[in-house]
């Protein structure tokens, strides 16, 4: 069977004709397999949804219990047949519950990896390379300029800054699912034991992480009564990045704007966003990890999606691997 007959892009998302299902569709469909809970991959309104237990729970938290007509839990590693096509879910290391999906049919193995990262993350299971014929990779940071430093160094800079500027609140922008909890966990691992303040948008998901066994230490709501600005002096406050550009941020004393993202590697990006303390902490693979992963899967063909496809395609060509950009619409290639 030719790979492109087993999976190919449609306006709704990546479609499998023999199995009659979509992977991470961006519009409501009859049958959807979902890699992880970020909102551009996991949408509500499908008739049937198959995903890991944690991803299903995250979707229920975000969209309410009735986010899909019916749901089916995919256990990691378990092979499930969908209309004669074998599918199995394997850890992707991106956020809690995230998975790659292996689709197998008539001697053709394709891995749709969703979003993934390779380095250790105390808040989710690590990526396992799955051998396959075609590897579908993201390319969010698919340029040689993106090489994430060790996250311990980044967190150490944050903590040093709270000591250097004890009168200022440190506002850390981090996406609500995954990044925020990882940053908090890393700060805890660095020995920081003061309360950490969180924006309301993080509360539900952080509680869910704790229920799943990821201890986050003392979290307090970053709300306050009128006139006690001083309470946040020297504190670490975590919230979604959008909140820091918003009126919400005005309650904090002379804040240090920080942002945890792989994009912070580029100075101009940090500058444009008005970020004073960039933290290069990403839930996506950097360039070195992308090419290392492609090599490890042993894939003879690579499809590259959301991000900077051309550099990764070029690298594959130089290294004798067939590669092409896979034009899927609707994913935020900026999200990190």
């Amino acid at each position, binding site marked *: 069977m030719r790979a492109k007959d087993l999976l190919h892009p449609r306006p709704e998302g990546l479609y499998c004709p023999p199995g009659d299902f979509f992977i991470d569709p961006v519009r409501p469909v009859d049958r959807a397999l979902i890699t992880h809970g970020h909102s551009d991959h996991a949408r509500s309104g499908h008739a049937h949804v198959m995903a890991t237990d944690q991803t299903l729970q995250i979707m229920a938290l975000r969209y309410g219990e009735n986010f899909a007509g019916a749901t089916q839990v995919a256990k990691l590693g378990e092979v499930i047949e969908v209309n004669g096509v074998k599918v199995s879910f394997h850890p992707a290391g991106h956020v809690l519950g995230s998975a790659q999906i292996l689709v197998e049919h008539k001697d053709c193995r394709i891995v749709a990896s969703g979003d993934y990262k390779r380095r250790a993350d105390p808040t989710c299971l690590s990526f396992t390379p799955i051998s396959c014929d075609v590897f579908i990779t993201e390319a969010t940071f698919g340029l040689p300029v993106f090489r994430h430093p060790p996250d311990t160094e980044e967190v150490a800079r944050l903590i040093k800054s709270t000591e250097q500027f004890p009168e200022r609140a440190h506002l850390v922008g981090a996406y609500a699912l995954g990044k925020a909890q990882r940053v908090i966990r890393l700060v805890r691992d660095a020995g920081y034991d003061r309360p950490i303040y969180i924006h309301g948008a993080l509360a539900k998901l952080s509680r869910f992480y704790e229920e799943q066994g990821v201890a986050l230490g003392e979290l307090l709501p970053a709300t306050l009564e009128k006139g006690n600005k001083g309470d946040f002096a020297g504190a670490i406050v975590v919230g979604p990045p959008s909140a820091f*550009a918003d009126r919400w941020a005005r309650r904090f004393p002379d804040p240090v704007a920080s942002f945890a993202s792989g994009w912070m*590697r580029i*100075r101009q990006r940090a500058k444009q966003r008005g970020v004073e303390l960039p933290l290069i902490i990403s839930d996506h693979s950097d360039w070195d990890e992308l090419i290392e992963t492609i090599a490890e899967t042993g894939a003879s063909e690579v499809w590259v999606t959301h991000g900077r496809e051309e550099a990764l395609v070029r690298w594959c060509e130089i290294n004798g691997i067939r590669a092409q950009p896979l034009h899927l619409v609707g994913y935020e290639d900026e999200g990190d």
Partner: protein
Amino acid sequence: MNRFAELLDRLVLTPSRLGKLKLLTDYFRETEDPDRGLALAAITGDLTINAVKPAMLRALMEERMDPVLFRYSHDYVGDLAEAVSLVWPAPESHLRANRTPTLSEVVESLQTASRSDGPRVLARLLDSAESASARFAIIKLVTGGLRIGVSARLAKQALADLGGVDVNEVEEVWHGLSVPYLNLFAWLEGHGEKPERKPEALFRSVMLSTPVENNDLERLEPEHYAAEWKWDGIRVQVVAENGIKRLYSRTGDDVSGAFPDLMDAVQFDAAIDGELLVHDKKGGTGTFSDLQQRLNRKTVSAKVMEDYPVFVRVYDLLQEGEEDLRPLPFEERRKRLERFISELDPFRFDLSPLVEFSDWHDVDDKRKRPPHPVIEGVMLKRWSAPYMAGRAKGPWFKWKRDPYTVDAVLMYAQRGHGKRSSFYSDYTFGVWTGPEENPELVPVGKAYFGFTDAELKQIDKYVRDHTIDRFGPVRSVRADRQSGLVLEVAFEGLARSTRHKSGIAMRFPRVSRLRWDKPPAEADRLESLESLLDR
């Protein structure tokens, strides 16, 4: 090197002056000699390293990486130094140095490298750096120009903070010092003598004035004060001693190199204080925008010197021969100055004339209607005051003419930094141009202060409610003849500019009033600004 790299990374993104000072003082405190002195020299521009050209960097890169991938990377990042620092491949682990070199090791390798050896030495240093930040700092050192938004003056303030001394003290000793400033740090940290000023044409900290504010003059007697015009040039100090001649800016930077025409005319042993100005074609006093042709240059061509000859309008004499005149009253210094200046080349040095006046009302009239466009007000100097460094209130006042104003329409707003990062606080404004019946707005300037915190909130709300487009941190605000916010903008002057679509550049624009009441169609037209240009 890692600490220096971290310092650069933080400084470039820290908007507030206080934040920068804190980062600098902490760095100087925590870093040992000679690294901190070298860092200081790099920041103040006093570190000389043979430059590596961008083409050479690119060539180094292409030996190590697929040129196509490098081109994608460079296009994406924009800045060559940053792109190279990010993609530079780490050498095989057994070939790697076991630590990042210190700043002094880096500087020494670079300074001792011959021109032909330069690229190889640079490559070795980049191989030995552990992080992209360290590589970036190394490349910035060899390509010149750190561009971190720290002036020499700010660095000196950080040193003063480190030692708990006045910044004027640092400036006074500055020119007797050399890299890496061991005796300076020893003094500031309390385990060394204050560095001696070497007796060679040193800078003297300048005396500054305070603005005339409400009621300041009521209690003062007009006859105790002299008045002079306040010329709109650059404050300078010319010092010559034992054949050594220097021209200093008001912060003590030696700018002699860019003004050989003036320095040739320095044939005396003295220190004088005055305003650097330029002659116009007819031998009169040229405008500030003419003067700008001579500023911010390291060297100058003969053509530019001929077209824009500079001179100093002198208003004080601080030293004559061996004698320090600063303790003398202004009245005495002025007499000595008048005698002294009659001996000098009148094309290069002239005397700032005194302005006759009867009472404060008369001064007020004169400063409002200055007789020459390059005058920006009046200076008042107490006859009895000695020359004192710093900005004491009383001996010297400046009383500026009222600023120009224009009614302009808000066009774009950008989010601020630091405390203002959640506010749209930087405003680009425009005036009308084109046919009367169908005019369009053309941007003429940008202002980010002049309003109160309460007004900032109001404008911020206005921007959010009237956004028609967004580009990153910038919002485009609805501005047409029916709807728009009119800002009264005050400014100090205009210069022609080829860089702006409107053809003009404003000096020191700030918002002076919010004209919520004024319909945008009634804002000013470009012609009214252009008429100011020709004055």
